[in-house]
């Protein structure tokens, strides 16, 4: 590259950077993976995110008149590609990132504060980042792996007739051998001490396509329940192996990332009885999905096949982007309606979400998720989740709404967050900082 062109490019980038703040468009970077072993689950998520943005542009003309632009960047679930995508897209005026991967979240958690861009990690990421007083820029909205593990134990306890009945039982965790899969272990170990059940940890080497040994071990140990913490191809492989070794599928419980259509469709009847958590309702009934069909698909602008609209992960992508857009809208209420919001301003918006039932209805999300409101110290907002069961052809809810037990979660989160702060030499936020 010639030096003059480098200099020119530098000037152009600086100008563009400056111009972005004044440009009349809100830019949303979309980190996705549509290739690799995790593509079957990453694709509907990515489609849901993009379709929601298209719908907002088509139906509302943007956020209070500010048009939305977006750009996808393929990460393949790899941390280094995720970091490269982040570096490339942050310069375009990105105001929040949804990395779609716990591994990438870990990497970006160190970079985002310096660049002043919040990370929206709905239902994944660092469990300790729920504590907003230390993790200023992370937002694990609606749940983390600790709340998921907690709810699963609550549900199993309820199924057994009381948490005290768990004493002496065996619960196996078949998990993806990566930060994602290992995250729930501290919570499960804590609960196993509390209730006296034996926790058997069975890791599956990523990407988890060949699991015979893991399930032979399950057959050997004969646990009463198996918790599945997989992603991508690992989920359906696990169910197929469970069938091949004869483990009753109705004793299997998956986290909300192991309970979607791609995981069970090709196992079909063989997975009947399998249960999983679900953060959101699915289906084409909710108003937001209807709007997407009306304003995007009916005009032939859909990102993926229409058959995918309304599936579990698609709807979750819609929810994530809806919360992101709502954060921008909330930021605009404070910093200027009709203006483009920066990362810092969107961060404030994410920290002050107040979606009550009325607001959810207005957004078209009624029936999809429960009310959620975040605060300076609570970056999660809500931990409502339900259990759903696959009957061979479709998912249907099989339990009431659960909420994570704060008595157990909060102390663990606090100590983990403080340890993080000590390691990284970050100080707790001051009350004044909470108001900014």
């Amino acid at each position, binding site marked *: 590259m010639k030096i003059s062109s480098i200099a020119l490019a530098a000037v152009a980038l600086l100008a563009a950077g400056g111009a972005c703040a004044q440009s009349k468009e809100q830019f949303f970077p979309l980190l996705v993976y549509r290739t690799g072993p995790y593509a079957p689950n990453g694709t509907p998520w990515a489609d849901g995110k993009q379709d929601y943005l298209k719908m907002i542009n088509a139906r509302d003309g943007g956020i209070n008149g500010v048009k939305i632009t977006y750009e996808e960047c393929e990460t393949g679930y790899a941390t280094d590609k995720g970091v490269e995508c982040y570096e490339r897209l942050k310069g375009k005026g990105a105001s929040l990132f949804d990395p779609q991967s716990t591994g990438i979240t870990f990497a970006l958690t160190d970079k985002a504060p310096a660049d002043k861009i919040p990370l929206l990690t709905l239902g994944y990421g660092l469990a300790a980042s729920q504590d907003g007083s230390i993790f200023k820029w992370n937002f694990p909205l609606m749940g983390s792996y600790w709340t998921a593990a907690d709810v699963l134990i609550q549900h199993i306890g309820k199924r057994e007739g009381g948490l005290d009945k768990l004493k002496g039982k065996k619960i196996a965790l078949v998990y993806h051998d990566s930060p994602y899969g290992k995250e729930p272990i501290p919570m499960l170990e804590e609960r196993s001490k509390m209730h006296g059940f034996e926790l058997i940890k069975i*890791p599956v*080497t990523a990407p988890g396509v*060949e699991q015979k040994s893991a399930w032979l071990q399950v057959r050997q140990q004969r646990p009463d329940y198996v918790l599945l913490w997989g992603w991508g191809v690992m989920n359906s*492989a696990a169910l197929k192996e469970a069938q091949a070794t004869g483990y009753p599928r109705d004793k299997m419980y998956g986290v909300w990332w192991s309970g979607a259509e791609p995981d069970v469709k090709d196992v079909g009847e063989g997975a009947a009885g399998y249960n999983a958590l679900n953060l959101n309702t699915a289906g084409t009934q909710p108003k937001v999905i209807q709007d997407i069909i009306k304003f995007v698909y009916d005009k032939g602008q859909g990102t993926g096949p229409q058959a995918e609209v309304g599936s579990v992960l698609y709807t979750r992508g819609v929810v994530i982007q809806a919360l992101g857009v709502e954060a921008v809208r909330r930021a605009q209420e404070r910093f200027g309606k009709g203006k483009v919001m920066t990362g810092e301003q969107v961060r404030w918006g994410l920290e002050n979400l107040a979606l009550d039932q009325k607001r959810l209805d207005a957004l078209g999300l009624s029936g999809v998720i429960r009310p959620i409101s975040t605060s300076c110290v609570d970056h999660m907002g809500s931990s409502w989740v339900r259990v759903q069961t696959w009957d061979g052809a479709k998912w249907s809810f099989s339990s009431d709404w659960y909420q994570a037990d704060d008595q157990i979660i909060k102390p663990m989160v606090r100590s983990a967050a403080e340890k993080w702060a000590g390691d990284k030499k970050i100080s707790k936020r001051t009350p004044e900082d909470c108001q900014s």
Partner: protein
Amino acid sequence: MGFFLETLLGGLMTGMLYSLIALGFVLIFKASGVFNFAQGSMVLFAALAMARFAEWLPHWTGLSNKFLVNALALLVALAIMIVVAWLIERLVLGKLVNQEGIALLMATLGVAYFLDGFGQVLFGSDIYKLDVGMPKDPVIVLDKVLPGGVLVSLEDLIAAGVAAALVALLAVFFQKTSTGRALRAVADDHQAAQAIGIRLSRIWVIVWSVAGFVAIVAGIIWGSKLGVQFSLSLVALKALPVVILGGLTSVPGAIVGGLLIGVGEKLSEVYIGPYLGGGIEIWFAYVLALLFLLVRPQGLFGEKIIDRV
């Protein structure tokens, strides 16, 4: 005791399945001296072709008999693999005659990347179902003799049987037919074989097509077991220890190596794994192969490496 037998059986059968993939490696190495790193991608490509055509053919032709549709899809996939073999020979191997082994290795790695991308462009990156009517539920045998019985996966048993049949077929092909002899001649020395009138390009197309056929069979069996998706090509990494343990040039070596690695893997994961925290099976397989190689550096059945000074 019952569980030990289960693990042993499971290991043996998984080992046979690895041998299926290893066979592809051995075939190509035996006949063209190339270590085909693209075997995993060929298995994936073949499986994708079979799965998708089995899905599309009913729409295009209106046939609904599953057996007929699968048979047709198999023929189409075979045709595609032959075309792929021909193209690889024309565009890659033919231009790299008599280059160093490592250059050829890298070329096949390039082909692997290409096939991975191309397969997904043509057929998609979702998980596709490959239904050849394999039984999915297990059977319990010997439950009168041993408590709890021994769990046998019928699907794996059938697959192991298919693998054994394929190996027998290939062994006959190499030993008894003139094409087989020509293949062995080419494996020995490309230029000498050319000198006595063996058409190198034709032989290579045949070899890669046979390897493609083996890839289809492996793809069907693994694809029916695990679903057809990009990660299927990663199963080839589990078959590499089988290849080097058995010897790069030996078909029976691929079987024996497969059985050894399969059993070693499963037994180690189930019995040693829990003490080490689990997840050890993939490196254990490689370490096992490595230990065997220290005793016999050319693999159990491979040709002795003679260094000339």
